[in-house]
């Protein structure tokens, strides 16, 4: 059993626990490499099926090919696809690109608020109709009580302290100082009404593990991660106004793995292209306490 086998088995075990313990379960799919690996792990865990809906928070500032790629895979793999958004903030232009708020405020409006209200069912969920091949408002407004998320402990400080099963209270708040114990493969699967749990099957994976797994399992990845000829590529995907490509000529998975192992990224944080992380010493942690992924 090698390192990737071990990581895979643990992630599948966690996902299966979530599936058996939560009636209203969903999985966040950001179209990025991590949550796409998560999606492939789900297809393995459940033998070709994904027995819960996938939720994408659309900020309308996502790089357009991400959304195309999302819908292509959703149709091909028969995925129960849902997206949610902060329609009002977009209408009122309360966004950073519109010049009306800071990057962090924009993240809060378009991501955190949209996420919380999509999960709770307060705001409209748009569900992919596989016959019509388009999204229609979902009549089901029941809150999701279990949310599978692809965060990794090595991404940044606050994520390194996450649990595999991490409770969020009725306001989606995360109490870092009072987290449940987790040992011997037993997780917190009991929860009070109104609260929900975030489930993190990829917590032990590193960026390199993700790429090595993508290679081994032939995980289909959005091409934005590769240099398309102008010596830049995205290392981490987000909204285009706040995510800069990095200078790199890695054109395929092997190039990326090589770059991470020995090259210039071996010692540079993955999210260094994400400007919102830099605004405040603990900015991302503050966002995460309030419900950010």
């Amino acid at each position, binding site marked *: *059993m*090698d*390192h*990737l*086998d*071990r990581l*895979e*088995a*643990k992630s*599948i*075990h966690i996902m*299966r*626990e979530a*599936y*058996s313990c939560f009636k209203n379960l969903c999985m966040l799919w950001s179209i990025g490499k991590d949550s796409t690996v998560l999606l492939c792990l789900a*297809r*393995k*865990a*459940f*033998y*070709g*099926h994904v*027995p819960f809906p996938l939720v994408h928070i659309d900020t309308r500032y996502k790089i357009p090919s991400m959304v195309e790629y999302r819908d292509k895979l959703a149709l091909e793999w*028969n995925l129960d696809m849902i997206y949610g958004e902060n329609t009002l903030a977009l209408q009122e232009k309360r966004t950073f690109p519109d010049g009306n708020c800071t990057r962090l405020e924009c993240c809060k409006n378009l991501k955190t608020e949209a996420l919380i209200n999509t999960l709770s069912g307060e705001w409209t969920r748009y569900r992919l109709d596989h016959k019509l091949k388009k999204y229609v408002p979902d009549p089901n407004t029941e809150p999701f009580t279990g949310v599978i998320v692809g965060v990794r*402990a*090595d991404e*940044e*400080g*606050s994520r*390194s*302290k996450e*649990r595999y099963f991490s409770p969020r209270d009725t306001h989606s708040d995360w109490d*870092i*100082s009072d*987290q*449940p*114990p*987790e*040992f*011997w*493969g*037993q997780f*917190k699967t*009991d*929860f*009070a009404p109104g609260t929900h749990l975030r489930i993190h099957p990829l917590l*032990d994976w*590193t960026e390199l593990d993700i790429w090595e797994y993508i290679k081994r*399992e032939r995980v289909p990845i959005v091409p934005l991660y590769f240099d398309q000829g102008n010596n830049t590529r995205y290392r981490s995907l987000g909204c285009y106004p706040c995510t800069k490509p990095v200078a790199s000529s890695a054109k395929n998975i092997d190039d990326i793995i090589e770059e991470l192992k020995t090259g210039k990224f071996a*010692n*540079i*944080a993955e999210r260094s292209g994400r400007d919102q992380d830099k605004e405040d*010493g*603990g900015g991302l*942690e*503050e966002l995460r306490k309030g419900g950010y992924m």
Partner: protein
Amino acid sequence: MTENSNEHMNIVIVGHVDHGKSTVIGRLLADTGSLPEGKLEQIKELCRRTSKPFEYAFLLDALKDERSQGITIDTARSFFKTDKRKYIIIDAPGHIEFLKNMITGASRADAALLVIDAAEGVKENSRRHGYMLSMLGIKQVCVLVNKMDNVSYSEKAYSKIVSEYDDFLKQIGIAAEGFIPVSAMQGDNIAKISINMPWYKGDTVLTMLDKFRATKPLDSLPFRMPVQDVYKFTADNDDRRIIAGTVESGIFKQGDEVVFYPSGKKTHVKKIEPMSEQEEVGKASAGYATGFTMTEQIYVRRGELCVKADELPPLMGKHMKVSLFWLGKNPMVKDKKYYLKTGTMKAECYLEEILSVMDASTLVKTEKQYIDRHDVADCIISTSRLCAFDNVAALASTGRFVIVDDYEISGGGIFTDTVENLHRYERAKVMLREGKWEHGYVTVEERSDKHDQNPALIILTGAQDTNKKLFAKALERTLFDEGRNVYYLGIGSVIYGLSADINPPGEKESRSGENIRRLAEVANILTDTGLILIVTASDLTKYDIETINLVTKNDNMLVIWLGEECTTDIECDMVLRADEDALEIIRKRVEQITAR
């Protein structure tokens, strides 16, 4: 799948608050060149702005909460590598308030570094953490005597701590892999050997880490797989019924005969299902998440423990002797309902009896009737239904459990009982009953003479929906028409009558255990009156028959499985298809065993 030279190991750092765990990690990261570019500068800059002296610990305290309190409150993971392998270092908090976080971190580790401040010496949590490591089953521990610069690198100060702490470890059954005098702040003996302590000839922390042995897969132990779920996804015309779970120990393959406990149901592994098209799997071993289809379609569900029929069976019981540690805000008390989770099973449970309570930091036992937060205790836990588990000494991974109190995991423990618990409470009840039983003046012999038959108990079992009841009625009619004194009783008549108080409508859970005991008590009375009694119940197991045997004094018993093949672990006298021939075979057999 081949073993990768790309080896990984999880190490936890534990010890008393402020003894320098985070500094050890910070130094390890810095000295192995494992810090992201600019991280060190970023933290130094932050210290300059906030007018604090730079400390390596700040590298880890990425959270605002922590920086302001100056202590680690939760386990954080850091990554570094040596030539030998990659390490994940888990920083566990040393403050007593955060013991549950320490346990969370330590339970993920293959080995532990335990840090003791050379000046402060062995403190409460130095010992408590040591105890928790042993409870969690972590065998490899190295002790770092830190802040040697504060005691002028004195060998005497070091030796005193080594001798005191080694004594403690021996008491709790841990043999330390080694002791190392270090100063994480100054970098002594962390990545390179210190020139300040020429009297020390041993390993540096880094060379010690590389000496730790990787946790071996548990392939050579008996096979155990807690059933996580049974999948039947119908999309795209998928008609597989897949038993899914993670193999805790051992190995299994296609064609193996497996038994599920506590239901005792048996089947064969038809096929280990591949998870993707590329894969071809004939077997699965410890650590793998897997799933298989069955040859015989029996009804099993989440919570059962799947084992191989020809290997060591698990223990079963409703009253378990355990050692546990308590983390809950409220003490663990008697007469309160908790939940016990072991493997994938979850059952209502109660604290039945406290044998002893101990302070893990002093090993002093106290007499009290509740278990406080951070106490460890030996006690007896009772569950509402039968549990399948292992003795922790035989199989650690299935010998552990957690207790859930009010939605929260509030304690953890290990099963320490052996055979004694099996039917212990049934046995106690029967002994009391026998003592209290009022015998009339008419003897069993006299009754047998009068009816011209010896009493007997005929148990008809088998899978559900196999016409057991019709067959039993036909058998009753046949024997009655021959002039025998015979009576038929189905378990349903007991469940909805005598056991109505414990079987709320709609709850299937309680079928086993108490219902079987009550059926056996009725059988005991009826056979005592001289009757030949025929009972029917589905899917009876070896455990059920043991219960019936224990409760009924009558040993004139015939156990018959009706159906093609027996699908539980029951040991029966006959396996017969429920037809006319079977009726005749049983009639003859009954004639033999009841003849005067």
